[in-house]
């Protein structure tokens, strides 16, 4: 039984120099067999294991992670959470996640530092204005809070934005979702890991999947760097490496894996208390609790698994940031990094069964999966446990690329988000 975190446990451990904190999750060797194995120990994978154990009563579950948990895209994103998507299917999916975020710290007894500071999306040309107003209306019809702000209101909400009409891409207005915001990404992985481990889930790090054993049209187990593990339910949540795992099972996915970059500045005093995104000039910025500006750049246009990304992408992003925020012109950037994102042709995810029995994929989140972490885990767990999708992820099946029933979110999600 894990000790509950509280102000009392904090005081108690402070008195013993913080040397006696209980280990948050174990480090077991894999068993010979599991009821279900989740491949990928990022936020989505750990959340899947957590909800499988909690809501679907599976107890014998393992999460396999080739590196360390939360060391992939979970720890590399810019932590933005929002649900203002255009289409009904996406609105349902992302707002389900947002509702889970609102109670996640209590649910996990782990402070994920969820902060509903609002997300503002800027419009810089007439088409942006039309698209964003349409999106605002669509959001409100789906019960998602969204308001349109004119230029003066944008300036009032975030005074450091340059709203002068003579800049290259003047700010013509923007949308605001007040329930949106940010969270601490590492804490999300750690909170789910601790919660899942408490219910008996084995979290096995440094264990890479090398092959999928099939018997006809069903799976029998996984070849890993720690030996063969038997199971008849495999949930793959491997983000940029989804295609690599799919190839092991002889499957092809509609994905392309590309490097997406982000960077942070030196820490400064509070200057921007919201998240501002701009599709047209392709820049987004927020400020972490440490005071660093967190800046998102774009993806490279080519397939790569290098976790780096090109310098010209960073240059273009910073040009856009400086035009919108001249106040940042003398800030120094501290760190830059890349993650590999798996992008679907319609910029919507896949949470789906496959034509191989017992093999499930949760992938294609592209540039914006972090925001969906709790919802993605919950719905994927439902799909694995029941061998049927939940009604909220039914539209996000693999078959949509055959039927043509795509969920085209390029308007809401074409940029990194």
């Amino acid at each position, binding site marked *: 039984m894990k000790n509950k975190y509280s102000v009392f446990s904090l005081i108690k451990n402070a008195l013993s120099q913080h040397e006696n904190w209980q280990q948050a999750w174990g480090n077991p060797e894999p068993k010979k067999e599991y009821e279900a194995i989740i491949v990928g120990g990022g936020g989505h994978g750990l959340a899947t294991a957590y909800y499988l154990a909690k809501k679907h009563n599976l107890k014998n579950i393992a999460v396999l992670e080739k590196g360390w948990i939360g060391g992939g895209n979970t720890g590399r994103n810019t932590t933005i959470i929002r649900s203002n998507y255009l289409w009904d299917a996406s609105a349902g999916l992302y707002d389900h996640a947002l509702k889970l975020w609102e109670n996640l710290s209590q649910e996990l007894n782990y402070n994920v530092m969820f902060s509903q500071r609002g997300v503002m999306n800027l419009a810089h040309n007439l088409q942006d204005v039309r698209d964003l107003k349409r999106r605002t209306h669509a959001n409100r019809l789906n019960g998602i809070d969204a308001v349109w702000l004119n230029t003066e209101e944008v300036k009032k909400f975030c005074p450091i934005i340059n709203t002068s009409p003579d800049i290259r891409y003047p700010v013509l207005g923007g949308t605001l979702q007040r329930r949106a915001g940010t969270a601490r990404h590492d804490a999300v992985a750690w909170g789910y890991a601790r919660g899942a481990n408490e219910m008996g889930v084995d979290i096995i790090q440094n264990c890479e999947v090398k092959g999928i054993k099939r018997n006809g049209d069903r799976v029998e187990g996984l070849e890993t760097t720690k030996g063969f593990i038997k199971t008849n339910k495999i949930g793959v949540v491997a983000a940029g*490496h989804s*295609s*690599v795992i799919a*190839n092991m099972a002889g499957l*092809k*996915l*509609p*994905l*392309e*894996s590309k490097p997406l970059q982000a960077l942070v500045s030196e820490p400064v005093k509070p200057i921007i208390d919201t998240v501002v995104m701009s599709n047209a000039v392709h820049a987004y910025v927020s400020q972490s609790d440490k005071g660093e500006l967190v800046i998102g750049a774009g993806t490279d*246009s*080519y*397939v*790569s*698994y*290098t976790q*780096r*990304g*090109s*310098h*010209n992408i960073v240059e273009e992003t910073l040009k856009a940031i400086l035009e919108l925020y001249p106040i940042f012109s003398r800030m120094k950037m501290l760190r830059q990094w890349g993650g590999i994102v*798996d992008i679907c*042709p319609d910029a919507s995810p896949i949470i789906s069964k496959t034509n191989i029995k017992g093999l499930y994929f949760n992938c294609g989140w592209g540039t914006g999966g972090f925001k969906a972490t709790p919802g993605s885990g919950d719905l994927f767990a439902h799909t694995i446990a029941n061998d049927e999708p939940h009604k909220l992820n039914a539209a996000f099946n693999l078959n949509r*690329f*055959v*039927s*043509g029933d795509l969920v085209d979110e390029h308007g809401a999600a074409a940029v990194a988000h």
Partner: protein
Amino acid sequence: MFLINCPFCGERDQSEFSSGGEAHIVRPKQPTELSDDEWAEYLFMRKNIKGIQFERWNHIHGCRKWFNVVRDTSNDKILSVYKMGEKPPVNYK
């Protein structure tokens, strides 16, 4: 970030080029006779290889010509460049 040896212009910065994705996906000869599965395969399904990949590039800010590249996507090393219509080099699998 890397240099690409354009077969027409020589070595230039990658930012001058645009990526055209996986190479050698054959356009269907009889589009009217394709099944939905075959359309999905042609339009959407990609190998998305981690390792040696054959791909198309366009020198968009240069000669604007298309050509093929063999690149290792795990380290961005370019192994070979060849023109459209030429057979892919056989020493890479």
